[in-house]
C-alpha cells in the first residue's frame, strides 16, 4: 500500500502548497476578477488537498488531515518544488498555474479509471472542477502571449524561468512500476507525455516557445526543497502552533 499512499501524498502536498501560494493573491490581484480567480482556485486546491488527506486518514489510518497538513517538517513534504516557489509577479504565477493545472487535470483524468476505487471516485469529481482552472489559465496565457511586446516578453520570460521546475512535477518515483502493474496509475512518464501533447498547441497559440534545453528540477518528491518552503510552512502553521493542543475553535 506504500505506493498508493506515496502517490496520494504527493498530490495532496502539491495542492496544499500551491493553494497557499495562490491565496497570497487575495487582496493584491492586478484586477478584481483575477484577485477573485486566484482566491477561488486557492480554495478549490486546499479542498482537493483535504479530500486526499482524508483518503489517507480513512483508508490508511494516517493522522487526521489538519495535523498532518500543518505539522510535518519540510523533509516530510512531498510536493514538487514548482508548487513552493514564491508568487513572483503576476506573469510568473499565471505561467506556473497554466503548467501545473494542466498536469493536475490530466492526472485526475487518468486516475478516474484507477483500480483504487476511493481515488477513482474522487478524481471524477475533482476533474470537473479543474476544468475551470485550466480554462482560466488558457485564456490568460493566449491573451497575454499575444497582447503587447511587454506582456509577451514577460510571459516568455516566466515560461523560460519556470520550465525546468514544471518538469519536476513528473519526477520519477520508486513506486511507479508498482502503481502501473496494480493499475492504480499509469505513471509519471505517461502523464508527462500527455501533458506535453496538451500544452504544446496552446503555448504555440499564445505565440510563445517552449525552451529547447531542459533540465528537470527533481528532489521535491523525496523531501528536498528550495529555501522557500520552510518560511511558507512557518506561516501556514503560525496560528495553529500558537494554541495548545486540543484547542477547539
Amino acid at each position, binding site marked *: 500500500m506504500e505506493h498508493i499512499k506515496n502517490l496520494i501524498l504527493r498530490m495532496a502536498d502539491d495542492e496544499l502548497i500551491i493553494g497557499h501560494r495562490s491565496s497570497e493573491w487575495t487582496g493584491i490581484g492586478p484586477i478584481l476578477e483575477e484577485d477573485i480567480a486566484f482566491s*477561488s*482556485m486557492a480554495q478549490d486546491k486546499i479542498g482537493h488537498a483535504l479530500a486526499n488527506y482524508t483518503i489517507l486518514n480513512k483508508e490508511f489510518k494516517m493522522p487526521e488531515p489538519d495535523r498532518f497538513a500543518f505539522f510535518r517538517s519540510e523533509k516530510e513534504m512531498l510536493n514538487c518544488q514548482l508548487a513552493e516557489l514564491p508568487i513572483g509577479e503576476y506573469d510568473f504565477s499565471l505561467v506556473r498555474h497554466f503548467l501545473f493545472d494542466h498536469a493536475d487535470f490530466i492526472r485526475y483524468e487518468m486516475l478516474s479509471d484507477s483500480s483504487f476505487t476511493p481515488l477513482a471516485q474522487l478524481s471524477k469529481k475533482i476533474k470537473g472542477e479543474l476544468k475551470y482552472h485550466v480554462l*482560466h489559465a488558457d485564456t490568460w496565457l493566449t491573451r497575454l502571449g499575444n497582447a503587447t511586446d511587454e506582456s509577451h516578453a514577460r510571459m516568455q520570460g516566466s515560461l523560460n524561468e519556470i520550465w525546468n521546475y514544471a518538469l519536476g512535477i513528473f519526477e520519477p518515483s520508486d513506486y511507479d512500476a508498482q502503481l502501473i502493474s496494480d493499475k492504480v496509475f499509469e505513471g509519471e512518464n505517461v502523464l508527462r507525455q500527455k501533458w506535453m501533447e496538451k500544452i504544446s498547441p496552446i503555448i504555440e497559440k499564445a505565440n510563445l516557445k517552449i525552451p529547447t534545453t531542459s533540465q528537470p528540477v527533481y528532489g521535491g518528491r523525496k523531501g528536498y526543497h528550495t529555501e522557500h518552503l520552510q518560511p511558507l510552512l512557518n506561516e501556514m502553521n503560525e496560528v495553529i502552533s500558537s494554541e495548545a493542543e486540543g484547542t477547539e475553535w
Partner: protein
Amino acid sequence: MTATVFNKEEIYKSLEEVMDPEIPTLSVINMGMITGVEETVTGVRVKMIPTFMACPAIHVIKNSIQKKVESLGYENVEVFVDDSVIWNSDRITEQGNKLLKDFGLGTPKRHEGKFGMEEIAHSKCPHCNSENTTMNSIFGSTLCRSTHFCYDCKQAFERFKPV
C-alpha cells in the same frame, strides 16, 4: 421519549426546509444534495453530497439537516457524506433552477456530462432574459458562480456554473 416511526416521505418533506447557506432560497432537495434517507437499527441515516469539494458550508449544512430531522422526533440521526455519488449541476431540480433565477442568478443548462467553453461562457440574463450577454470571469463570489454582463439591460449578474 418514544422514537418516531420511520417515515421516509416525512423526512424528505422536512429537508425541503433546509436551505443552502450560500443561496438561502434553495433547499438541499432542490440543490440535488440528498442521495438517500434510510432507517438504521437505532435511528435514521441521511446521505448527502457537497456541490463542490471545497464547499465551506458543508459542516453547516450537515448540522442543519441533523437538527431538522431530530426536530421531527427521530433519535440517532446520522448525516453521512456519500462518496458513491458525484454532484453535478444537472442534479438541481427544475424548481431549483427557477428559484436560482428568482434569486438573481443565471442558471446552468442541462448538459448530461457534455459541455465546453461555449456553454460555460454563455448565460441568459436572469433579469431581462436576454441572450446578448458576455462572461467577465469564470470565477465569482462563491466557487459555484461565474460573473457575467448583460448588454441589453446593462446589468452585471452572476451565474450558477455548469459542473
